[in-house]
């Protein structure tokens, strides 16, 4: 780049220097020639003037007496550039002159017949050129006959070098100006041409290195810019041709799935690295293969072996096949084949893409295993849930046990004491009073029997109990049996507002009783610290629904736990008193009955739980 720049410099500067030299030469020569010509003219004019005047003077005075001439001639001869001046007679003999002596032939030359015109000759002497002007002197009477001649010799070179030197200074000035101009032109050219050329050269080097995205920036608004545009266009076109090939090769090489390009006969012509990696073959091996050789099942229907080399296999997408990898490993793949068509819609070959399914298969196995595990967990969960239901039932039974203790202890005590009393009365023969004791015993036995009968029903497995038509009011009364004594002792007043003539409804009696037991127990617990202790149990029919409301005047449910009260294991009761399952199980039971369990609560004032059962006509 640097070398070419110097070369360009020389190329640009040499003609300029040559031109300057030429101009200098031409000017020098023309100056010299012009000076020489001027000198000659001046010398001639000087000579002619002097000799003309002298000739007239001599014509007037005559040549016979010529002594007066000498001082004139000496005076003229001492003038600048004048080499000599003298007068000769008609015989050519010098009669007077500036010098002391003359040769006889000094006035050589024939001046006869030249009565008027001066004879001008130039001769070269030792010092240089000499101009000799000879003016004939006319006879005053016979003018056509010259009586003599005046001759003057002027040195032509005397004046010339001075003027030439002066002219040379001028030339030097001109030359310096030209050199300056040349320098300016060089720098201008350097910036206007060389720089731009360097930019273009740099771009060209980039392209040579394979960078087809190089673009030459704008180079101003001259021809170089047009050149840059052309250059860019060329780069782009070149890039499109060269890059596209490399680019598409790179694309094919970068495809993550297995890719084969086949010729129309099914012979592999190209294979991508992913295929080699997956199958574990060398490229040379695969390149010699027919696609059939790479299939695990060579008789595969997709590439039937045929004798005719040119066969058009139909395109297909997403078929599950197996490829044969190095070491006879079968690799499951999703295989697609597409025909490559040329411009004339003739098959040029096929592109086969295959996606390795091994990872997916492994994932499927894992998912299946996880699924099985999940099912196992689910079964465990269901078992746990069943256990929870049982626990909840036991919790309800625990609740009842408290009631039973209360309810049965009293009648048993009364029975015991009355039986003993009867026995004592009989001993004392007070038969009439025995009857009183016996009736008390019967009354208490009946009371206890009721509770025990109720427990028998409750003891049945609720799961096995089928849905039966039941009277909701009766179920409430039965559930209440176990709470009678507790409510009495706790001072809880119970108001029953049970609507008469309610339709029977289909239910699992035990489960419904379980819900009622839970709700009554919750109401009881909510009232422990309340001043007003009232539980209102109400039944009514609303359209197609049976409604049971159990309202208490307890502390109510605070808003922060409202979303949680139906959650399993959520309880506000002391540890050991509540399982946290009562409402959760109750909710589930109501859902099983296609009914609902909801509540309204006002903290400090009480809570209403509402059970809603659908009444079906066939119930």
């Amino acid at each position, binding site marked *: 780049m640097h070398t070419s720049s110097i070369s360009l410099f020389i190329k640009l500067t040499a003609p300029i220097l040559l031109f300057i030299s030429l101009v200098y030469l031409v000017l020098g020569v023309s100056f010299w020639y012009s000076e020489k010509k001027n000198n000659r003219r001046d010398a001639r004019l000087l000579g002619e003037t002097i000799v003309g005047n002298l000739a007239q003077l001599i014509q007037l005075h005559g040549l016979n007496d010529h002594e007066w001439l000498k001082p004139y001639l000496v005076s003229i001869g001492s003038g600048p550039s004048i080499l000599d001046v003298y007068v000769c007679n008609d015989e050519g003999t010098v009669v007077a002159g500036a010098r002391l002596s003359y040769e006889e032939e000094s006035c050589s030359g024939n001046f006869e017949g030249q009565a008027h015109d001066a004879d001008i000759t130039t001769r070269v002497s030792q010092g240089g050129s000499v101009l000799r002007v000879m003016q004939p002197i006319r006879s005053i009477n016979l003018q056509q006959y010259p009586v003599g001649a005046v001759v003057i010799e002027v040195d032509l070179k005397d004046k010339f070098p001075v003027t030439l030197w002066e002219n040379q200074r001028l030339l030097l000035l001109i030359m310096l100006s030209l050199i300056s101009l040349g320098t300016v032109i060089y720098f201008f050219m350097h910036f206007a041409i060389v720089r731009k050329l360097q930019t273009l050269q740099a771009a060209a080097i980039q392209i040579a290195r394979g960078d087809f995205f190089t673009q030459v920036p704008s180079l101003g608004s001259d021809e170089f810019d047009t050149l840059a545009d052309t250059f860019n266009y060329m780069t782009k076109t070149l890039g499109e041709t060269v890059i596209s090939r490399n680019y598409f090769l790179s694309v094919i090489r970068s495809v993550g799935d297995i890719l084969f390009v086949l010729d129309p006969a099914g012979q592999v012509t190209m294979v991508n690295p992913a295929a080699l990696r997956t199958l574990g073959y060398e490229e040379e091996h695969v390149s010699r293969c027919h696609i059939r050789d790479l299939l695990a099942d060579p008789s595969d229907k997709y590439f039937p072996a045929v004798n005719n080399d040119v066969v058009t296999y139909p395109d297909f997408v997403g078929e599950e096949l197996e490829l044969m990898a190095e070491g006879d490993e079968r690799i499951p793949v999703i295989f697609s084949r597409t025909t490559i068509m040329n411009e004339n819609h003739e098959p040029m070959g096929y592109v086969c893409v295959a996606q390795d399914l091994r990872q997916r298969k492994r994932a499927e196995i894992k998912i299946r295993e996880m699924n099985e595990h999940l099912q196992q967990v689910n079964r465990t969960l269901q078992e746990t849930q069943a256990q929870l239901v049982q626990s909840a039932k036991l919790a309800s039974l625990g609740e009842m046990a408290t009631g039973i*203790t*209360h309810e049965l*202890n*009293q009648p*048993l*005590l*009364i*029975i*015991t*004491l*009355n039986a*003993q*009393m009867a026995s*004592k009365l009989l001993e004392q023969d007070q038969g009439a009073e025995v009857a009183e*004791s016996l009736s*008390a015993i019967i009354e*208490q036995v009946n009371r206890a029997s009721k509770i025990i009968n109720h427990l028998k029903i409750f003891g049945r497995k609720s799961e096995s109990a089928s849905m039966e038509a039941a009277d909701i009011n009766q179920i409430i009364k039965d559930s209440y049996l176990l709470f009678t004594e507790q409510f*009495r*002792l*706790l*001072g809880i007043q119970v108001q029953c507002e049970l609507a008469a003539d309610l339709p029977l409804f289909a239910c699992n009696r035990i489960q419904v009783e379980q819900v009622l037991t839970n709700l009554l127990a919750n109401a009881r617990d909510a009232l422990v610290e309340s001043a007003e202790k009232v539980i209102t149990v109400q039944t009514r029919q609303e359209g197609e629904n049976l409604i049971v409301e159990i309202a208490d005047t307890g502390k109510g449910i605070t808003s922060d736990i409202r979303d949680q009260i139906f959650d399993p294991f959520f309880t506000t009761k002391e540890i050991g008193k509540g399982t946290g399952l009562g409402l959760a199980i109750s909710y589930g039971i109501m859902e099983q009955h296609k009914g609902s369990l909801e509540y309204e609560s006002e903290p400090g004032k009480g809570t209403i739980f509402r059970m809603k059962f659908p009444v079906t006509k066939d119930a």
Partner: protein
Amino acid sequence: MNILCIDDEPQILRILTKYLTMVGHAVKSASDGEDGLRQLSSQQPPFDLIITDVRMPAMTGLELIGRIRSLGVDIPVVVMSGHQDDEIDKAEKESGVVAVLEKPFSFDDIDELLTLVSRLNI
């Protein structure tokens, strides 16, 4: 002995009164704690024994004992309980409770109890 029986269950109260009278004691009965306290304050000569149920509405047997003690009365008390063990334990710890009758009990248990109390009084 002058005995005060307190129970909210009329059948129990009736049979207890009948038996204790039968075996020769002067018996007064009250259906709740307030009634019992009233009779306690008006009784002359004072009661020798108080038999009370634990679980009663309004005032429990244990609350009643507390009230009696706060009046400065130091009469032996027998409590009747048919419920949890912790309730019996609580009753036994009350001052002046000489025995706990666990429901259901018999007249033999009452006889034993009266023997015990008569010994205490001597």
